[in-house]
């Protein structure tokens, strides 16, 4: 059994952009609702509740459900210790944040009615909006 970790310092304020960022990482099947239960890899129901859930069948055989709990600040990830260690080589949260941030930039470009230039320098993605 793997315990769940709550990342209170990682907050995704915009639900639509969070769903888009999850899809970018390959998680297109997402359940949405109020206080959804999370299940571990053995089918055991956990005490944690979430408003956005990626079921373990869409992640991996040994994985647990992946959740996002709504807080006053936004959605915070609820990830099992096992998945935190193994998903995307242990970089799931970092990659999700990077993907979400890039979605934010595209959203800002649209709202500012500007043009967007993107370039990559190693592990750094540089984006520039002109409007």
């Amino acid at each position, binding site marked *: 059994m793997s315990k769940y970790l709550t990342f209170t310092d990682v907050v995704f304020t915009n639900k639509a952009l969070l769903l888009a960022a999850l899809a970018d990482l390959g998680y297109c099947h997402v359940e949405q609702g109020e206080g959804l239960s999370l299940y571990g890899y053995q089918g055991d129901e956990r005490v944690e509740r979430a408003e956005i859930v990626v079921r373990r069948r869409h992640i991996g055989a040994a994985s647990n459900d992946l959740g996002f709990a709504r807080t006053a600040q936004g959605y915070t990830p609820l990830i099992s210790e096992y998945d935190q260690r193994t998903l995307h080589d242990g970089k799931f949260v970092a990659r999700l944040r*990077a993907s*979400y941030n890039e979605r934010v*930039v595209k959203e800002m470009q649209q709202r500012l009615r500007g043009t967007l230039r993107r370039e990559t320098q190693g592990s750094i993605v540089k984006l520039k909006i002109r409007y």
Partner: protein
Amino acid sequence: MPEVEFSINTETGEMQMHIEGIQGASCADVAKLAKELLGAPAREENTPEFYVRPQTQKLVQPKKK
């Protein structure tokens, strides 16, 4: 032309934003939009440009005779 520059570290997911070419309070509007989508930043600094008040000129039209 106003520019907003972003730098995303794909290893950590952290992002930095820099607003350029926007003087005064208009800069705060862009920052407000970013905060709406990103949440409160870990650190926030105003560049000297922020404190520059945009210059406005009063247009006076001559009275029509």
